[in-house]
Structures are given as C-alpha cells and as structure tokens.
C-alpha cells in the first residue's frame, strides 16, 4: 500500500507497508475462511527485537512497532 503518514524513514516505511499488507491479507483470509462472519481485528507479531502490531481497517492499515519492555 501507499503510506500516508509515517515516523520512520521512507524506505523502511515502504518496506513495512508492503510486507505487512500482504501478511494482513493472508491472515484475514485465513480467519474468514474458517468463519465468514468473523473478521480480523488485530495482528501482533512478536520478535526478538521488536513487536509489530497491525490494526486493519476497511481502507487502511495502522502499523505500530514497539520495543518490548522485557
């Protein structure tokens, strides 16, 4: 997708946007395939260094990258 607002540098933003968009689509497809009345509200990916949180909406995606407290 096209990033609208970002606090990171452009290239990273574009990379995150593209990759996470695909992942969100896949996740949403999975959830809805199991039950069409269900829908994806939130996606959280925890890695060693950060935690990536994705909140999908009808037209857009909100992506937050957080450093975990632990």
């Amino acid at each position, binding site marked *: 997708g096209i990033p609208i607002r970002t606090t990171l540098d452009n290239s990273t933003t574009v990379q995150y946007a593209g990759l996470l968009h695909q992942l969100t689509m896949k996740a949403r497809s999975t959830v809805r395939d199991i039950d069409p009345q269900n829908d994806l509200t939130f996606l959280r990916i925890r890695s060693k260094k950060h935690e990536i949180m994705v*909140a999908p909406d009808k037209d857009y995606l909100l992506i937050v990258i957080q450093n975990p407290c*632990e």
Partner: protein
Amino acid sequence: MPAKAGERHRQGQSGPSGGKAVPPRPAKAVSKKRDEDVSTEAGEGVDEWVAAKTLVKPPDQLELTEAELKEEFTRILTANNPHAPQNIIRYSFKERAYKPISYVDQMAIHFSLNGNMILKDSDEGRRQSIKLSTAAKKAPVETSAITSEEAEIKGEESTEDTQPAGEEEAERSGTAEVADAAEAEEPPPPSVKEQKLANQFNFIERASRTLNNPMRERACQSEPTPCKNFSATANQWKIYDAYVEELQKMERSKEKEKPKAQIAKREEEEKKKGRKLTSLESQSDDINKISKAAKIMERMVNQNTFDDIAQDFKYFEDASDEYRDQQGTLLPLWKFQYDKTKRLAVTAISWNPKYKDLFAVGYGSYDFMKQGQGMLLLYTMKNPSFPEYVFSSESGIMCLDFHNDHPYLVAVGFYDGNVAIYNLKKATSQPSYKSSAKSGKHTEPVWQVKWQKDDMDNNLNFFSVSSDGRIVSWTLVKNELVHTDVIKLSVEGTTMQGPEGLQLQTLGCGTSFDFHKKIDYLFLVGTEEGKIYKAHVFDLSINKYEALCTQLVVAKKKNKITHIQFNPVYPVVIIGDERGHVTSLKLSPNLRRMPKEKKGQEVKRGPEVEIAKLEKLLNLVREPESKAEK
C-alpha cells in the same frame, strides 16, 4: 577410242529393241562429238581398228624427243582428294592461337541425291502401306489416268522421232487405256472425302477460356472489444460478503418503501446499541479516519506496556491464601489517573452494567470551602492510560448511576443540586439533559441518583436524594427533565413554628437510598441523622471503609479512600481516593468468597440468602452506626 565403239554398239542394239526414245538423243550427241574429234576418219564404224594404227597428230601437240617420249611416268592412284586443301589452320579460342589441323578431310562428294525411299517396316512405311491398301480402288483409276496422260505424251514424242516404235507403243497403251477407261466410267467416282492426315506436325489444339471476373476483396474490421484482465480468488468469505451486501441492499430498498415504520425501528435499534459501536463518519482529517484502528492500537500498546499487570489480572492467584483463613490480600493492578483531575477527589464510582470493564468515575470535592469544577471520566480496564470519555461540568459531581437497560446513559448529581443525564453515544462533552433552578433542582448537593424502570409511557426516569430532604423523581419527557417530588423527608418531632405561622418542617438530609429489587416502589433512604426510613436494611454509607480487608492500599500516598466498588464479573475492586486517583485491585481467592454488598449490584445467589447474610452484617454494623457518622 573405246567410247566410240561402245556407242556404236548401242546404236546398233537400239534398232531391234525399238524401245526408248532416249538412245536416239545421245546417239546424236555422240555422233556429233565423233565428228569433231575424228575429223579425218573416213568410214563409219568399220574403220575403228584401222584408225588405231595410224597416228594422227594435232597441230598444237607438244613436241617431244623420243627419249622424252619413252620416259615412264609413274602414276599412283591414291584416294586423296586433289581439291582438298593440304593444310588447314584454324584459330583455337581455347588456346588463343592458330593451330594447324592435322587431319584434312579427303572426302570429295561427286554426286548427292536425296532419296524418298522409306523403309517398309518403319512406322511411316507401315502407315503409308495401310493408306495405299485402303485407297486401292482409287489408285488404279488415278494411276491409269496418270499413265494415260503419260502415254499420250509419249505417243506424241514417239511419233515425232520414230514412228514405228511409237505407234506400237501407242497402240498398246491405247488398248490398255480403253480398257481402263471403260472400267473407270462405270463406278461413280468414290466420295471425295479423305481421311484427314493427323500427324504430329498437323496437331491442332483448340481451347477456350471463360472470362474471369476480377477478384476484389472487401473487408471491414470492427474495433476490438476492450479487454481487461481480472483475477481474484473466490473465498468463502468473499461469497459471504457479497451475500451480506445484497441483503443490505434489499433492506434499504424496503426502507424506502415504508419510511415511517422503518425510521422508528431504526431509532430503537440505535438506542439499544452499545457505546462502542459509535461510528465516526465523514471525517476529513487523516488522523480521524484511523480513529478506530488507533483505538485498538492504543489498547494493544497499553497491554504491552502493562503486560505484567495484564497477566496478573488474568492469571495470578495468590497461593498464600490457603494459609490465611478469612483473610485475603489485594493485589494492586492498574492505576488510572488523568491530569485534569489531579486536584479533584473521586466522589463516585460505578461499573457499567453492560460492559464489565468500563467504569465511571465522578470527580468533585467534598470540601465545602473548595468547590470547583467537576469531571466525569469513564475508564476501561483495557486502557489504563487515558480515559475513554471525558465530561466536564461546572460543579463537582457527587454521584452517578448507569442505566441498566441503556448502558450509555449516566445520571449524575451535582454539588449544586442539579442533576443531569449524559449520553455516552453522543460526542459532546455536555450533558444531554440538565436540570436547572426552574426545573426544580435541589437546593443542596445531590447525594444519590438512581435510575428507575421506564414508566408507563416508556420514559426514562430516575430518582435523586439530596440534603434538602427531597426525593425527586425526574422523568425525561420530550427531552426535558420534569421533576416530581416524591417524598419530603421530615424529621420526626421537629416541627417548628415559622415566623409567619407556617409550619416548617425541618427536612432531614437524605444521603443515600436504595430500592428494593423486587418491589419497585419500595425503597430505603438513609439520612445524615442516621435514620433509615422504611426498612431495616442498613445502607452502607459512601464514606465507609470496607471492613473486610485490612490491607491499606493507598496508605503510602496518605490519601483517603473515598469510594470503592466491586466489579460484578471480575474479582477486581476499584478504589477512588481524594487525590483523583483510581486504583484497581485484584481480590485474592479468599476475598472472593464474600458476598458483594453494594447497592444495585446483581448477585448470583438468591435474594433470600442475601437477606440472611445482610441480616448478619446488620448486626455487626448497627452498633457503630448508632455512635455517629464519621
């Protein structure tokens, strides 16, 4: 010399044969020639041998000596052609030089005659023999005609030269001729038609060709239809989405048909929706667009930040409770605070009946001297950093209550005696409905408000009790608060005489009240004087501590706890203090076994059991009550 002899001999023979006319001619010529050559010959034919002996010299003969005459000249007869050249030089283009040809052709052709004889067995010969056989009848006629002509000519000639020979011949030919003519005259001449001689040289080809019309091509091509590639995956949920859309379309079309009924229905539906379904549409700002997602994100971030607390909330069970009878611990969980409420004290807390994690906190001040603004904040346990809803008011809030059926309606009572209803679904920070001096507000702070069931006209109504001794029922009629004084509390035995003879009743100050669960119109009021009207159930005053747990929760801050509320679902209790902080604590298992003693909360157990327990408590509490209020 021998030639002469030969000719003479011939002549003599021709006489008896009498044949041909030819010999007479050469005979003539010979005789002439003889005459020239031998001029001195005396006799004819007899003098041959005699003439040979005597040499006759012509006058121009070469004169030679006898020796020269005896000389023998050798003559060789060769096959060489005397006329052929002896050396022929030809230019060779290959070698670009003149080259002599070694062999010279010595053949001399004396006489050549092209013959017209065909081999009998060859093709042509056979053909002609066949032709001759088929035309045999004609042939003798023709040939006889020809021969007759020839004979006539011969006859003429013969008569000229030698009559006797010719006549005989003519007679013979004439007889033949007559015979033939007779034959010829009888049959009519056969058909003149002849078979065409078809041979290779006379081959004629006949062909004809039709006229071909010139070909013309005419074509027309239409514009190619615009093609567009489309690819998608048909998932189950996509199909479901399509169905849902279709359904919505149908519903919309139905609505257009019946506008009135549908509108009324929709309003009801909207009322029944919870506050979390508020949709923020027509937002032009980018930030506002993502508000929904941002909200979720904020909660998630908070969950991360307060991760350990969240884990404790869910899963932590204090194992040490086993060793302590009847006493439990309180585990501190989240702390809720807001900048603007730092100076204010928590005056009211209430859990939302529908959303178990939502609670409302009313801020105000208990201090008579310091009266400032009030705030109403609604927090959710999912987001401890920031309140979900913020409402500000001019005077401090003293009490609040959620409506059971409409969890988005909050009734509040103010310090200045007003009451108001806040609608959480609306985005404004002002109350939807507010009482005023005109509409019969209290003259003293309102200490308690409580919702009632909708009256017969389906209007919302609630009660409020205040220090001015009035219990007022407020009804929401046509967007206005209409008040009706229900009871005026009067202190027994304190009727005083007013200055103008009016009986003034000193009104008791009601501080709290509660309604009977089953009987709607039965309620209890507790007053400052410590009296309870109408029943013997003691109402826990708002300024009392919970006696169940001795753990000092906020002792560190040296605050006074002002309010406490149990959560009906989760083993969590929230405590408000004077500083404006709200702390949530988790009850350890021991504490959970205690019955909840808050007004208006639903308890799973039957009311009879509860009554029994309350009786017990009553006995405990009655004594301190009689001492004094704190």
